[in-house]
């Protein structure tokens, strides 16, 4: 069942066209992993989905609601789409608990007690219940990213967009974040993940999307795409990535 439809999205920054007509569909419960060289529009694509960046043209639907329609209440749409940023963007003046609780109280209008219980449950889910009172600056990068995943989960999102969630982390902290994401995928969360973690892509993705130069060059199930890419550009990228990150991409 289709949850998200992206149809021929274009985005231009000044002279440079970052997205040159990108289309994809995402089924409920599916995990799509977007890979590709830096600066090829992967993050822009994610940001277009909830209109943190306004696409220049093209249409996007969440279920049967057109996200890109001027009549759509975009705040209502965003509340249904989790977004996890590369550099976490936790609210620095709020505790972990309040970071998770803010959307529940001021967007979903939950009573405080209920919001607190829900926020604590989500912190528990990412293994950080004991850090509820800590401020972001008192947490490691991995912990901050897990709190930001809890913040997204608390909103009961229909899907979560991950924008290079482990790229800002020290290598030894990447594992704890990936573990949370793997569990989410197993539990049936719908996700689009932009990442360079090929091991994760390979084991979790239902489909890999390879983007370059503002277009989707090739997409397919991980086994096929990693073993026998159809396009030379894909093969080239995978070869370079495996040189950089070792054998896990093979």
């Amino acid at each position, binding site marked *: 069942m289709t949850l998200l439809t992206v149809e021929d999205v274009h985005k231009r920054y000044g002279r440079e066209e970052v997205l040159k007509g990108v289309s994809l569909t995402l089924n409920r419960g599916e995990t799509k992993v977007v890979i590709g060289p830096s600066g090829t529009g992967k993050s822009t694509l994610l940001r277009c989905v909830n209109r943190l960046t306004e696409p220049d043209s093209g249409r996007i639907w969440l279920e049967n609601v057109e996200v890109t329609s001027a009549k759509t209440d975009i705040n*209502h749409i965003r509340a*249904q*789409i989790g977004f996890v940023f590369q550099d976490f963007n936790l*609210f620095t003046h709020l505790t972990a608990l309040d970071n998770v609780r*803010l959307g529940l109280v001021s*967007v979903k209008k939950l009573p405080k007690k209920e919001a607190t219980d829900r926020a604590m449950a989500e912190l528990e889910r990412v293994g950080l219940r004991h850090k509820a009172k*800590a401020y972001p*600056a008192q947490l490691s990068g991995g912990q901050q990213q897990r709190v930001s995943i809890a913040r997204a989960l608390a909103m009961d999102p229909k899907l979560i967009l991950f924008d290079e969630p482990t790229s800002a982390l020290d290598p030894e902290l990447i594992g704890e974040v990936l573990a949370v994401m793997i569990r989410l995928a197993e539990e049936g969360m719908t996700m689009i993940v932009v990442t360079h973690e090929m091991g994760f892509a390979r084991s979790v993705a239902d489909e890999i999307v390879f983007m370059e130069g503002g277009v989707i060059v090739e997409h397919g199930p991980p086994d096929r795409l990693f073993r026998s890419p159809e396009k030379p550009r894909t093969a080239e990228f995978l070869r370079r990535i495996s040189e950089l990150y070792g054998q896990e991409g093979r």
Partner: protein
Amino acid sequence: MFPSPSFPLTAETWLRVGPYIPVLLRGLGVNIQILLGLIALGFVVGILIALLEVYAPRPLAFVGSAYAWFFRGVPEIVLLFLFYFGLSRTFNIPVSPFLAAVLALGLRSSAYQAQIFRGALLSIPHGQMMAARALGLGPVRAIFHVILPQALRLSLAGWSNEFSSVLKDTTLAWGIGVVEVMRQAAYIRGRDFPLTLPIYLTVAFMFLVLTYAGNWAIGAVEKRLRVPGLETRR
């Protein structure tokens, strides 16, 4: 042979100041009222101007900048005269000298406070706004729940500067006839001329105490609002 000084500073003159202290304090009370009024007005208007300058579309942002230019460019005493005589005598709006002082000094302060808040707003990373919007908060909610609480914390140091400055500016209200501490001092001096220097030294001392107390209070607020983990000095 030197003539004896007309403003003597002797133990005898100091002793004569004592009975006048309640009168001076009554005057100082008026300064404090002006201060509270002007700083509150300056705070509210200052935040609005800063938000306009940072977030509003061009034409509105320009209004904010023009406002700041006017109120930072005209001398305070001129503003006081403009507000008092302009409102009460030209437009026949019945404002007391006190109210005119609060308005003139408050709006002037708002232009300075706006610059403090603007700098703080600009220093909040863009990601904070993005994360708030991604959660589904509208722009106003995002500003009030996420951006302002962080920006105001950063503003406190600069704001304590503005506080010290406007505290002393309240004495300018003397110029439009507010019976505040300088006016009381002038009355005393008129009655007992040799007390001139001890009286003004007393007034100076009162302001030194107020400046100290005010900055101590702001420091305490700053400490209370400090976000754990973000301190530079532990």
